[in-house]
């Protein structure tokens, strides 16, 4: 069934909303009533219809508006896209993967026709119909990684694998939770995770790195990460922190429902066939508290997670100023009843 794409904004007047159907498929990240870092990885395999796992590269009603917002970010700050020179094979790997997955999942919206190395790519929602030579960057309007990630939801990093480590050597990062590609590009796995509190000490990154170094082709893996954002703003970059930071002071007990958003990253990691690099997809989903509490289980659970969140994480995730208001607001939606296991609505 064709997706009806919404016309909406992630800045200024913030008209972003989730339709009722989209709320039900929101990837709520908490499978229990409390939260702590863990190596919460599982195979990235197809899930049921009506969930974000229906296709492995998920396209939803926000696709067109998100791609428009990305174009605005890149116009202001082209450094949000960068790729080191040795990453060209991985760029083509990524283009192939995203075209194939989108065409397979949404044939009514995307079509890929291959004739040896002459490829034709049709993207109907964005009105694109291009023919190019796979492997020849001069036949595209920009580098292949930039070309395809201007047409795919989520942030994308390509990490190179060498010396038993992973290196952040390319990225398209415009919907990030406060980290800078321009600063982190070229860093290894431990370095770019340097500022994360607690997780280093409990060995999370050592185990995650070991796991990822052995990631196999055709067996992608996934995990959740999350934070909260005031207003449905995709571009919460450190570059623009002085522009969006003041939003955090605007939360009152009356406007929590519309202002405060749960921001979930569905991260999927894919071994790439030619380059042996790993594509790291960081797909961001936003849901307002008003929308979230339409699912009673999620309202109860988020209330409990926020109440028991370790203070280091409250600080690191930037929740300090509005956490109390949000907990009080959510408490009206938590009757203390037990919650069922797993992430899906009852």
């Amino acid at each position, binding site marked *: 069934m064709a997706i009806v794409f919404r016309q909406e904004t992630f800045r200024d007047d913030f008209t972003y909303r989730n339709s009722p159907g989209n709320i039900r498929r929101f990837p709520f990240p908490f499978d229990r009533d409390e939260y702590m870092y863990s190596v919460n990885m599982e195979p990235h395999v197809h899930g049921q219809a009506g969930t974000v796992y229906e296709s492995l590269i998920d396209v939803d009603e926000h696709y067109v508006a998100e791609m428009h917002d990305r174009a605005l970010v890149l116009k202001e700050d082209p*450094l949000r896209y960068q790729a080191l020179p040795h990453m060209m094979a991985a760029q083509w790997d990524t283009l192939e993967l995203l075209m194939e997955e989108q065409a397979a999942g949404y044939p009514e919206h995307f079509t890929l026709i291959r004739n040896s190395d002459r490829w034709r790519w049709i993207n109907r929602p964005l009105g694109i119909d291009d023919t190019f030579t796979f492997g020849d960057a001069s036949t595209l309007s920009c580098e292949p990684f930039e070309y395809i990630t201007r047409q795919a939801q989520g942030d994308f990093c390509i990490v190179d694998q060498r*010396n038993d480590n992973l290196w952040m050597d390319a990225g398209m990062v415009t919907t990030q939770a406060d980290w*800078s590609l*321009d*600063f*982190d*590009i*070229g*860093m290894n796995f*431990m*370095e*770019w*995770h*340097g*500022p994360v509190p607690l997780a*280093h000490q409990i060995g999370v990154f050592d185990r995650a790195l070991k796991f990822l170094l052995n990631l196999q082709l055709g067996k992608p893996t996934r995990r959740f990460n999350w934070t909260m954002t005031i207003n449905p703003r995709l571009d919460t970059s*450190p*570059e*623009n*922190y*002085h522009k969006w*930071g*003041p939003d*955090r*002071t605007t939360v009152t007990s009356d406007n929590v429902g519309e202002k405060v958003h749960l921001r979930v990253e569905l991260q999927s990691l894919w071994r790439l066939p030619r380059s042996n690099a790993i594509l790291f997809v960081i797909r961001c989903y936003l849901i307002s508290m008003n929308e979230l509490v339409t699912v009673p289980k999620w309202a109860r659970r988020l209330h409990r997670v926020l109440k028991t969140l370790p203070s280091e994480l409250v600080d690191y995730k930037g929740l300090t*100023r509005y956490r109390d208001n949000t907990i009080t607001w959510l408490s009206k939606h938590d009757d203390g009843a037990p919650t069922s296991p797993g992430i899906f609505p009852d």
Partner: protein
Amino acid sequence: MLVEGIKSRPVYGGIAIDPCARRHIFALEGEGALALLDQKPALTETMLSRSEVLYVAAGSKGLDHDLALAALKTDRFWQGPTIETLLFRLRGSLSAATMSTRLYISGREGFIGQCMQVATDMGMDFSSIPTEHRGSLARRVQCVHCKGITDDVRTSPFKCSHCGLDLLVRDHYSRRLGAFQGVNIDAEEPGTAPQAEELFA
């Protein structure tokens, strides 16, 4: 000597001379001269005849480290007036370097970072370059907002020398930029920046 536990910060393990190298290039700044001078008893004639020393006195002017370095009688000794001129000279030395040349860097962290940029731009692997931190803990900081770099930052917060925002100096270091990250400290409530504290003396 430095704050422990900053995962993205390089480890400065010391510049003990590598007896197997056929050529040694020492890029030294300020108190970094002492990292080489302290090794004097172990330096052989052969090593010195294969060594090139590039030095900028910077904050150590008047302490005569340059005279002590010159007295080593290395194959080459060059002294420059500023870090910038040293980096230019270093680029020249490295472009003429052959296999089995070892580069050593010592001085303040910002200096090490900038020499490292020159070397890695020329294709050297950072892990093959011994480094030693000497001198003050002052940091080289990049403003994440305007991307301008401010050298010799001793306090946090400090005012970005380019865009004027008050920046918190984060414990996050980019080898590619040779700099720590500075983030606006009063972004959420402009005008509420705390007093600067001298943290990196």
